[in-house]
């Protein structure tokens, strides 16, 4: 079920992780009437110093996976391993210690930075709650600002005094404050203009190679994900439909959904290939409250067979280091 790993041991490993959000009715006599399976039996692993890209359309559960890993929300089922330790249900001081290694960069830095706090206290907060001295904090803040390409003289400014790209740098500096090993970047560059987006991507890559960070890079932009990731997982309605080495997934996508997704991305090189061989999916994402049975993609799949509506396909090996969940591949 999970991916086979050769040498380096996994930093993060996830087995059959699920998150179900209950749907309730009534206020006084509140009762559950169903559940949205936002994440449905997802397994993957991230090695030290590597990046796993998680792509999919809105509502596919990719952000929920990120939140689960950092334990912002609790899993309904499955296990999250970090360094071989089960962290799925840890709490209190155990979780507090783990959080030093697990950090998060949010999509919108304007709403994830306190507008009334100065940049130095935003960045120093994770250090202060861990008992650092004021002088040490000041020193560390200056160091972090420089690391993310800002000037230490920016420390006394408020978030609104920065541009979008600079604000995202502050968000990254805050995430780096505790010297984490694993960072979840949830659509960290989506809100930025193209030219600024490229700067932040380069920054994230540089920090990774300098500090040996691992990323879970959650994004909907396939070209950005390809650029930054080592491995890519494609999600559809809460499930991973394809996962593997980025070169393999992008060059020879095995799942029909991955194929359609890649073909839908407009690209520069396409002036020449215009009109030819473009595969446009019909229909829209089904309602996640009532997902189709069998393979979740069968309602939009150009190659669907009767079997697809009944039986849920499991991930199968397509090539070395590439797996996809499709009956056509069996």
């Amino acid at each position: 079920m999970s991916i086979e790993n050769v040498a380096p041991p996994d930093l993060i490993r996830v087995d059959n992780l699920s998150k179900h959000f209950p749907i309730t009715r009534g206020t006084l006599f509140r009762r559950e009437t169903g559940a949205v399976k936002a994440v449905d039996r997802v397994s993957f692993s991230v090695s030290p110093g590597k990046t796993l890209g998680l792509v999919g359309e809105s509502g596919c559960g990719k952000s929920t996976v990120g939140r689960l890993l950092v334990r912002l929300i609790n899993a309904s089922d499955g296990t999250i391993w970090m360094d071989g330790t089960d962290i799925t249900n840890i709490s209190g001081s155990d979780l507090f210690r783990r959080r030093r290694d697990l950090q998060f960069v949010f999509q919108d830095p304007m709403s994830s930075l306190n507008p009334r706090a100065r940049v130095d206290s935003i960045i120093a907060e994770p250090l202060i709650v861990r008992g650092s001295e004021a002088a040490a904090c000041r020193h560390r803040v200056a160091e972090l600002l420089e690391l993310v390409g800002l000037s230490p003289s920016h420390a006394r400014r408020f978030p609104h005094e920065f541009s979008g790209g600079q604000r995202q740098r502050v968000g990254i500096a805050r995430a780096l404050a505790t010297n984490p090993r694993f960072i979840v970047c949830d659509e960290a560059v989506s809100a930025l203009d193209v030219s600024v987006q490229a700067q932040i991507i380069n920054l994230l890559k540089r920090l990774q190679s300098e500090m040996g960070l691992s990323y879970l890079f959650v994004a909907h932009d396939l070209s950005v994900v390809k650029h930054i990731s080592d491995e890519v997982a494609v999600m559809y309605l809460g499930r991973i439909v394809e996962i593997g080495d980025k070169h393999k997934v992008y060059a020879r996508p095995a799942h029909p959904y991955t194929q359609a997704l890649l073909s839908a991305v407009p690209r520069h090189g396409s002036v020449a290939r215009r009109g030819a061989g473009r595969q446009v999916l019909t229909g829209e994402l089904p309602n996640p409250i009532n997902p189709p049975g069998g393979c979740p993609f069968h309602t939009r799949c150009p190659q669907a067979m009767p079997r697809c509506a009944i039986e849920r396909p499991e991930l199968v090996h397509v090539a070395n280091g590439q797996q996809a969940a499709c009956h056509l591949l069996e």
Partner: protein
Amino acid sequence: MASPLLSVEALRVVAETRYRQNLLVEDISFDVRAGEFVGIVGESGCGKSLTALSLMGLLPKPAVRASHGKVLFENRNVLSMPARDLHHLRGNEIGMIFQDPMSALNPVQTVGQQIVETILLHESMSRDAAWQRTIDVLKEVNIPASEERARAYPHQLSGGMRQRVMIAMAIVCRPKLLVADEPTTALDVTIQAQILELLDQLRRERGMALVLITHDLGLVAEYADRVLVMYSGRIVEQAPVADLFTRPQHPYTRGLLGSVPPLDEDVEELITIEGQPPTPGAWPSGCRFLPRCREQQVGCASWPVRLVPFHEDHAAACMLLERETADVD
């Protein structure tokens, strides 16, 4: 050649307060021929949306207005048109769709009612006939079960369906030009592909011209005939689409192209443009890209900015290009 459908000449848009005047868009000139697909590309704050709004006389006057230049639609100046003519122009001759269909649609009316209202405003026909036409146009934009959907409220439709309703509303009176301002930015890639295929199909079938405003160079590469690249309120480069991507002339265009990770090949590091775009209104004088330009030379700061023709329809506002072409002559 026949005169173009739309011709913008030296358009300038300013924002005025009691104390000062801020220049937002300056010296914009371009043509759109009948049935042509023109893309306008730029980052936020570059004036692309204001340019789009000026095409229909929709600038939020009096705070923001066109202070100079002309927007000629079939040789009539939109900027000096009386309100009654503008009313006829919008919808009948130029249609427009916006980025966020949820805020452009009325939440307390069914989408069918809203389209009927549009038709009745522009044409005299019975309510029943207008309703029939609404169903037909919803079918034309590929909305399944269109009779049912016409009775739905906007919140009952998905984002992609809402954008289809917007398109239906914009084309129901058969405009000759459709202006689409970031129509797919809020949508997922697979839905984005559907909407653009639809727009392109409508353009071909109806011979309607299309102006697509976007920040996504890839979209433009895929569909447009001609591209304008805007930076800080000015056009920095304009070219037929194949030319722009194979031999970009302006350093900003080259930087933009380098900033997008390519899907088909691997690059180690993205070529970036340092710094960030200047805030609207606080443009540097002379070449506005100068503070971020990697290729700047002595003389750039004092060069009077203008579009330098490079090759047929291709022009860029860069001093280096002018020097190069002068050398060749």
